[in-house]
């Protein structure tokens, strides 16, 4: 989230799309309720009338996979009715920037598309540059090559008629939603858009999020209290996981993972460190060298010196341009390329797309280690229903893990708040905390390398790994993540700001000469000399803006509202004086309120400090599939794309095979989507083993409309089979008024929804929803398209 959960209480309008907040984030939802108690309006956009829609003011039904059509219509509405916050758009976004006149869009494709390579040559997407190498701007935003005019032109195609025809949403509801939300374009009105997997789990997922980001920028909703792009992450600590590099293309702190093309640290830094010529652009990523070097010092300690590039070449390097994410990983596993697999607190046999394929892939492993609290479906894939265990050669280890109640550590929520958790009870039986398990693994592997040598022992043997023999102290790890001075750190005047051996107060003290170590620059400041900031529990709120700045600690540097310099005009006056997160005090010559994005006085720097332009990107070139979001149909869709001739995202990642076939509309005419329930947790290990939760939702089900049920002769409570080209799942049919058939361009399209928590283990067993989903992914992230596919449904006789 660009702000945080409690900040939702400040919003005047909250739009929830591709997320079921009340269902999956009930505790966070109280802040939405608090906003509503102040008079805020809640709009829910979803194929299904959910538990969130039940308490909303307005519900807009849209067919799965048509979110860009919805947002395109909203962008068009905002532009046509001139409801954008003009000064904000002009000053703080790249709307006035001029683009290469060769840029174009036709027939669903942007300029520069290579149909053979299936990529874009983006040279026509570049900014026009002036003599100093700075982007050319038109402050009037009337130049036809300005981003603003290009935006207007692109979304002029998303009229209410077209959007209604594509999404199946009634025009009246669309217009009402647009009207209400666009009101937040006023400077004293704040709007938040809450989204989650319903947006990201599509072949156009990244562009879905881009679309809502554009809406927020047009309405001036970023950087202010109550205005945010509110990603609701799917678990209590997935933010923490990705912060600390759970993704293959990251190092901790979202530093880029090195590739085979980075033969030296210098090569790497040259590739990743952005340059900015504009003196008003803070371009914070220019500090890359400090962060990567400090990270290397944390990992390799004394062994990392300037001479050996601080051990840069000891890091594993991915092949440039290759995709190592979940889907290709399992595809490689299926081919037999992966020998061993360690799965920690994850259950891909249930949670991964195309369960049949992924379970089969696991059979090809030589060994598998599962670290979990329960014997999950992944741990028992080798004896799952329908397979002969004798035929499977994988050696499987199950290491019992301790739960979060049985160990100490920090957890980072979706609002970037790092909150310390204390241990409540001793672990049950032989179960051990992950820290202990990891420590044992590394220690023993290292010992083996020491004794037996090996192919490339240097990185392992040079690891700065001294956490003792037993359970590492979480605080020690936390301190290392925060960062420490390895020599006296002096400021520009030579004054010592951090003594040798002391914790650094924040990432501003990190150095690129190897005199600091830091496990994650983003977390620098969370465990300082003052102590464990994440353990603070002061819930006072002096600004009344729900900042709670002394409760726990959030990254970066406890700044609760990101880009908060955008909450004031260039002259420093807040857009909304009643709700200003930061305020310039001319006497103190400092900002008061939230931690500002830099102490510089008003107007000295641009507010979007993480981008080299310094202003937010309405037009965004680094994405693979286009600088503007464009609606494409999902890989499996019952209708042709009404917006252009290009049916699906031209850059969507597809692995078509025997086990991953594309279904055709004739056989599978119904749109299917998947989702979660309040009562269960993800792949079900945590919840389907607890009787009190099983009691609440005992069996997997599919929700179908009354109309579809009548067509198929299905009664409420009947058992049915849902089938796609990839598999079939037996479910209970919940016949409901909350799903209605969509009228898509005159045709009736039925939609059903499947819960996916179930598997063949646990107290409550059932078929996995992911038996149905495909191995296709987003063009940028390869996020699987769980949320829109084609299926059919029939009663079990």
């Amino acid at each position, binding site marked *: 989230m660009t702000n945080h959960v409690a900040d939702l209480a400040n919003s005047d309008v909250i739009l929830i799309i591709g997320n079921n907040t009340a269902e999956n984030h009930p505790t966070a939802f109280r802040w939405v309720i608090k906003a509503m108690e102040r008079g805020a309006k809640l709009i829910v956009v979803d194929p299904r009338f959910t538990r969130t829609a039940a308490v909303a003011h307005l519900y807009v039904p849209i067919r799965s996979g048509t979110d860009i059509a919805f947002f395109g219509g909203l962008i068009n509405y905002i532009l046509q009715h001139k409801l954008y916050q003009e000064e904000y758009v002009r000053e703080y976004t790249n709307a006035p920037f001029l683009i290469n006149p060769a840029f174009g869009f036709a027939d669903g494709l942007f300029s520069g598309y290579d149909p053979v390579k299936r990529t874009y040559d983006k040279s026509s997407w570049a900014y026009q540059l002036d003599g100093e190498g700075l982007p050319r701007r038109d402050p009037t935003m009337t130049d036809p090559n300005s981003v603003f005019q290009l935006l207007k032109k692109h979304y002029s195609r998303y009229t209410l008629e077209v959007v209604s025809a594509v999404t199946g949403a009634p025009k009246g509801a669309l217009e009402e939603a647009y009207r209400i939300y666009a009101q937040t374009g006023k400077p004293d009105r704040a709007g938040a858009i809450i989204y989650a997997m319903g947006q990201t789990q599509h072949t156009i997922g990244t562009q879905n999020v881009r679309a809502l980001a554009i809406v927020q920028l047009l309405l001036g909703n970023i950087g202010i209290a109550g205005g945010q792009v509110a990603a609701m992450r799917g678990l209590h600590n997935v933010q923490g996981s990705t912060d600390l590099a759970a993704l293959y293309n990251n190092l901790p702190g979202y530093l880029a993972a090195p590739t085979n093309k980075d033969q030296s640290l210098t090569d790497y830094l040259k590739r990743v460190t952005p340059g900015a010529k504009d003196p008003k652009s803070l371009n914070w990523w220019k500090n890359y060298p400090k962060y990567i070097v400090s990270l290397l010092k944390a990992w390799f300690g004394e062994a990392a010196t300037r001479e050996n590039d601080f051990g840069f070449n000891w890091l594993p390097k991915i092949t440039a341009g290759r995709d190592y994410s979940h889907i290709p990983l399992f595809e490689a596993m299926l081919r037999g390329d992966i020998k061993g697999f360690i799965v920690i607190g994850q259950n891909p046999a249930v949670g991964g797309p195309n369960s049949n394929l992924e379970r089969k892939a696991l059979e090809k492993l030589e060994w598998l280690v599962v670290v979990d609290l329960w014997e999950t479906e992944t741990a028992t894939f080798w004896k799952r229903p329908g397979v002969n265990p004798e035929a499977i050669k994988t050696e499987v280890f199950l290491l019992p893990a301790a739960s979060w109640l049985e160990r100490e550590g920090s957890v980072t929520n979706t609002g970037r708040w790092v909150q310390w958790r204390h241990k409540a009870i001793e672990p049950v039986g032989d179960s051990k905390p992950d820290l202990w398990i990891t420590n044992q693994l590394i220690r023993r592997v290292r010992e083996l390398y020491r004794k037996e040598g090996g192919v490339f022992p240097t990185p392992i043997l040079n690891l700065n790994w001294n956490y003792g023999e037993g359970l590492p102290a979480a605080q020690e790890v936390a301190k290392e993540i925060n960062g420490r001075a390895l020599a006296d750190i002096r400021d520009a005047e030579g004054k010592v700001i951090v003594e040798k051996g002391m914790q650094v107060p924040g990432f501003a003290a990190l150095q690129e000469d190897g005199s600091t170590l830091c496990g994650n620059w983003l977390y620098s400041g969370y465990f300082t000399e003052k102590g464990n900031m994440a353990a603070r529990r002061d819930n006072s709120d002096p600004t009344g803006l729900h900042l709670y700045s002394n409760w726990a600690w959030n990254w970066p540097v406890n700044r609760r509202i990101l880009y908060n310099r955008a909450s004031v005009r260039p002259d420093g006056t807040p857009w909304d004086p009643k709700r200003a997160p930061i305020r310039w005090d001319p006497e103190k010559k400092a900002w008061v309120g939230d931690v500002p994005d830099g102490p510089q006085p008003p107007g000295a720097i641009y507010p979007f400090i993480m981008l080299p332009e310094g202003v937010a990107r309405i037009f965004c070139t680094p994405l693979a599939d286009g600088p503007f979001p464009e609606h494409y149909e999902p890989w499996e869709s019952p209708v042709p794309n009404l917006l252009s001739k290009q049916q699906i995202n031209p850059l969507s990642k597809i692995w078509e095979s025997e086990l991953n076939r594309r279904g055709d509309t004739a056989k599978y005419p119904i749109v299917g989507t998947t989702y979660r329930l309040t009562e269960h947790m993800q792949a079900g290990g945590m919840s389907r083993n607890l009787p*009190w939760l099983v009691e609440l939702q005992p069996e997997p089900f599919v929700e179908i409309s009354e109309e579809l049920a009548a067509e198929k002769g299905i009664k409420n409570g009947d058992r049915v089979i849902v089938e796609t080209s990839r598999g079939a799942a037996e479910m209970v049919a919940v016949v409901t008024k909350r799903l209605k058939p969509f009228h898509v361009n005159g045709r009736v399209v039925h939609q059903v929804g499947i819960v996916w928590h179930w598997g063949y283990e646990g107290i409550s067993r059932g078929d996995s929803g992911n038996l149905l989903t495909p191995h296709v992914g987003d063009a940028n992230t390869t996020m699987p398209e769980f949320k829109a596919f084609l299926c059919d449904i029939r009663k079990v006789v």
Partner: protein
Amino acid sequence: MARKAMLVDTSICMGCKGCQAACKEWNDLPAVLTRNTGSYQNPPDLSAKTWMTVKFIEYEADNRLQWLFFPMHCMHCTEAPCVFVCPTGAMHQVEGSFVVVNTDWCIGCRYCVQACPYDVARFDSDLGWVRKCTFCIDRVENGLPPACVKTCPVGAIQFGDRDLLIARARARVEELKRLGHPNANLYGETQLGGLNVLYILLQPPAVYDLPEQPKLPSRSIALNWLSGAIAAVVLPTFPLWWIIKRRMDAEAETSSSKGGKPV
């Protein structure tokens, strides 16, 4: 001391069932085996082992669909029919608010189960007595809110002084009417002497399967005894006497006509 009560604002309830789970946990009630019969509502009904369940009601009217959530447990009536009919006094009222079963004293006659207008009290066939929501009396008497109140993430269930809650509820009902819920109403203010669990409803009580105005037991009891007394006086006397006497007299006549000796 001011009477305590609970107020459930169903307009912000999101049906998360946190209250259900908390109730089970606090009262150490076992999970029951359930099936999905085509509804989110589970367990489908209250029972001796389930003292709280959230009702899920899909209601469509005037072109508008609503999914109404109703966290259901004992209403803790002021003039509680269950207390009224209990032959041992096991079902009793505490501090004028909370209706609690003394499970050491209950004999398991199940009269309360029959008498409750909300079908709340249930018989535990394993233990032999009746069980139901206790208003978390063990928590309340120690200065803590009931488990369901404590757990509710959005504060839909509130606990406190009854008069204050009613004032708050009335204001909220007016607000809901302004926000486009013309049928919003407060349930529990007057029913059965006043319920100590009050509900802000979005639709009339009948939509939630709630009786509009359940009969006051004190009123019905008088009529029932009266009807019983009248029937008892009338039926075994006049008809029976008449029919026997009729035959008796006829016999006396024939015997007298025959010579006096009864056959």
